């Protein structure tokens, strides 16, 4: 169980990984169709594609989670069978999943040795692992305290633990599935530095992502997947983001959001000194103040968990707070009677919640039922004082689904059976079609494919141009930069500062997101 360095560069002639004709179906859905790919050792190979394109399925086959229906796998030129994770590990494949597979109440060291203890007694295993970990840390600059509990370290460090786990098992092929989804820009940069270092040591890395920028920056070669098929494999240096986007979606895609300059009007939403303390006694909002004007999008940037969710929930009437909220100059109650979602909607605030599957929709209800939620008191939805007019709701839902391009446009389909992007379109349609004065939007494009992102962004711009106030919360800095007319950065329950998108850049925002104020603040 040494670092695994000596295994690195052997046999450079054979590709590190070669897949030939891999196919996999789940019922009627063909997740992977006849996929072939070859990755040279000591390179970073990107796999890009929309949600549901089959990237994760392909990697799960490589890691032994699924058995391919057809096809062959060659590792370092040798044909292998990978029936389970154990076989994958033995072949030298390590995987860093999008959702980390760590035991929260274990230490870093315990997580690293789990499953690769090397003996029935823990003490010698832990002591040996501690030594190897120190070497690996030095070699790859993967610093993390071996005795810290996972629950006490940040996601960036947790990811390092996942990488250490793979290296400890002597992996020389490392697969990373959407590794930057939870990281700050600075943490992401650090990750890519680590990956470069690993590459320099002869490791082969597969990077799965839907972010074009990462592909362009980090990879040597890139494969594009669309609807279960591999549509192209190109050298990164010989392609462009526009070409990759087109390959992913199958048509030309506008990467920049096309919008006219904002014409801000009166202040519609005014927030002053908002404070929230959660039930554990931790202050989540520490005096947040901001305004949103008519015809303006205020973007809230920040790493997840810095009070953005609480801000949205307070404004949406889901969470009590102290402070002041005014809409069109009228103060709204912040606790008790009148501080709920229904009252907020009556006051003109519509809300597209961050977590659409838990707070935006009821997954086991049909689309038309979901389309009525929050507005089910509406007089137009009632036949008489007792019964609802389901027919009217269904007709209206069909019309809204048409306008918002929800596929399939079937009001009687369960919310669960739509793709992420189409679920989000249902929520957005429900809220936007009510023509609110203020729209709260949380993570509008999380888990949504590029085509739908483009559509949802256009709808938000259209609402802004109609003179409405929009508060946008997103952890995707690109989205904030391209949609917002003003950007507020939140850190630790406070607004660190406001910037205009054309006067700032990702580095400055990244520092604010990490709680570091530049001299300009």
């Amino acid at each position, binding site marked *: 169980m040494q670092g695994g360095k000596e295994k690195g560069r052997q046999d450079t002639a054979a590709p590190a990984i070669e897949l030939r004709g891999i196919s996999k179906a789940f019922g009627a859905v063909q997740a992977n169709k006849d996929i072939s790919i070859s990755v040279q050792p000591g390179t970073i190979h990107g796999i890009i594609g929309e949600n549901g394109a089959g990237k994760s399925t392909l990697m799960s086959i490589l890691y032994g989670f699924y058995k391919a229906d057809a096809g062959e796998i060659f590792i370092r030129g040798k044909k292998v069978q990978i029936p389970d*994770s*154990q076989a994958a590990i033995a072949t030298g494949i390590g995987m860093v*999943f999008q959702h980390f*597979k760590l035991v929260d109440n*274990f230490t870093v060291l315990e997580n690293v*040795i*789990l499953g*690769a203890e090397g003996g029935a007694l*823990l003490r010698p*295993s832990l002591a040996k692992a501690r030594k190897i970990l120190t070497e690996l840390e030095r070699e790859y600059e993967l610093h993390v305290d071996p005795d810290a509990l996972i629950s006490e370290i940040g996601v960036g460090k947790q990811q390092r633990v996942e990488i250490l786990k793979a290296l400890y098992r002597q992996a020389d092929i490392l697969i990373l599935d959407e590794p930057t989804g939870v990281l700050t820009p600075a943490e992401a940069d650090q990750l890519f530095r680590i990956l470069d270092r690993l590459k320099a040591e002869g490791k082969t890395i597969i990077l799965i992502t839907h972010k074009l920028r990462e592909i362009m920056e980090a990879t040597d070669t890139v494969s594009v997947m669309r609807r279960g098929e591999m549509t192209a494999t190109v050298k990164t240096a010989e392609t462009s983001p526009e070409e990759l986007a087109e390959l992913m979606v199958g048509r030309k895609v506008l990467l920049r959001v096309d919008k006219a300059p904002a014409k801000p009007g009166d202040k519609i939403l005014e927030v002053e000194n908002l404070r929230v303390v959660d039930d554990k006694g931790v202050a989540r909002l520490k005096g947040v103040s901001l305004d949103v004007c008519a015809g303006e999008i205020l973007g809230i940037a920040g790493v997840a968990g810095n009070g953005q969710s609480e801000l949205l929930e307070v404004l949406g009437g889901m969470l009590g707070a102290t402070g002041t909220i005014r809409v069109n100059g009228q103060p709204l109650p912040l606790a008790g009677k009148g501080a709920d979602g229904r009252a907020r909607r009556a006051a003109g605030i519509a809300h597209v919640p961050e977590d659409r599957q838990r707070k935006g929709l009821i997954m086991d209800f049909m689309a038309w039922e979901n389309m009525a939620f929050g507005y089910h008191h509406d007089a137009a939805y009632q036949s008489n004082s007792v019964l609802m007019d389901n027919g009217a709701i269904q007709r209206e839902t069909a019309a809204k689904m048409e306008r918002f391009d929800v596929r399939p446009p079937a009001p009687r389909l369960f919310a669960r059976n739509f793709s992420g992007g189409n679920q989000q379109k249902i929520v957005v349609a429900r809220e936007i079609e009510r023509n609110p004065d203020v729209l709260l939007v949380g993570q509008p494009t999380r888990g949504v494919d590029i085509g739908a992102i483009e559509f949802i962004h256009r709808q938000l711009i259209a609402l802004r141009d109609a003179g409405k106030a929009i508060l946008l919360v997103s952890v995707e800095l690109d989205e904030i930069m391209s949609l917002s007319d003003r950007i507020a950065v939140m850190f630790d329950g406070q607004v660190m500062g406001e910037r205009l998108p054309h006067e700032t850049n990702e580095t400055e925002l990244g520092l604010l997101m990490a709680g570091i104020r530049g001299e300009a603040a």
Partner: protein
Amino acid sequence: MDFLTLIELLDSTVRSATPLLLACLAGLYSERAGIFDIGLEGKMLAAAFFSAAIAFMTGSAWLGLLAGIGASLVLSVIHGLASINYRGNQLISGVAINFLAAGMTVLVAEDWFSEGGRTPSLEGSARFGPIKLPFADQIADTPVVGPIYAGLLSGHSVLVYVAFAMVPVTWWVLYRSRFGLRLRAVGEAPEAVDTAGVSVIRLRYSAVIICGVLCGVAGAYLATGLQANFTKDMTANRGFIALAALIFAKWRPWYALAACLLFGFLFAIETRFQNIALFGVPLPLQLVQALPYILTVVILAGFVGKAIPPRAGGEAYVKER
């Protein structure tokens, strides 16, 4: 209360705590691995009956013990099949096992012995008799140390010593062995265990089987150690009390020992003192008898601080994409 009465009371506490402790540790293994088990009661009951029945037929308490463990294991495997392989609801499976055991033991007892759902009394080698520790007689008369050694520590059946020895053993297994690390991990994050190349199913079955063995010993102790035959519903909800103790102990072995001793103490008060007067007012016997159960309710209602169960507890592991 004089010193000797106290020793007697504590001696009785140890006896009453033994089946609780075994069941509690059984539950600890199972729940730490992520399998909730409210069928401890049923497994103990089945083990009590079969141990008494086989001990009576063969005249050997040891064969009885084996039969009890076997019966408990059968129910464990049923629970394992339902909750690990078929991803059923673990609470419902546990309830079913309790019903099955409650009905089956009485039915089979009546069919085999025709004594109204009980087994005949066990005598001699068909029971686990007291073991006298070395020099117990010699130092029995020494003040303080004598009664503690001879009266409290010595003179229990072998299963009592096994039960108490299981506490440090369990602690060691849980925190010092590879198996323990994996066991704790599979109850918290089975996906971490699975991706590390370790079988979740095999680990959970090991836990369920250990649980079955310990419940078997607990049941056998009830019928062949503490009592001298099987009677209908003789576990008297000890399985549920063990669960309460497990929650009280926050799923940790040494705390489980303390919790079980507390419950054992309440049982001892109930058996030793039929009439207690508090501030001159005699307490009704029923109230004294209800004490362990009242404490159970108080614990389960969450009055003793927040207990956080293993995170993946109660849920079958399904590989996700």
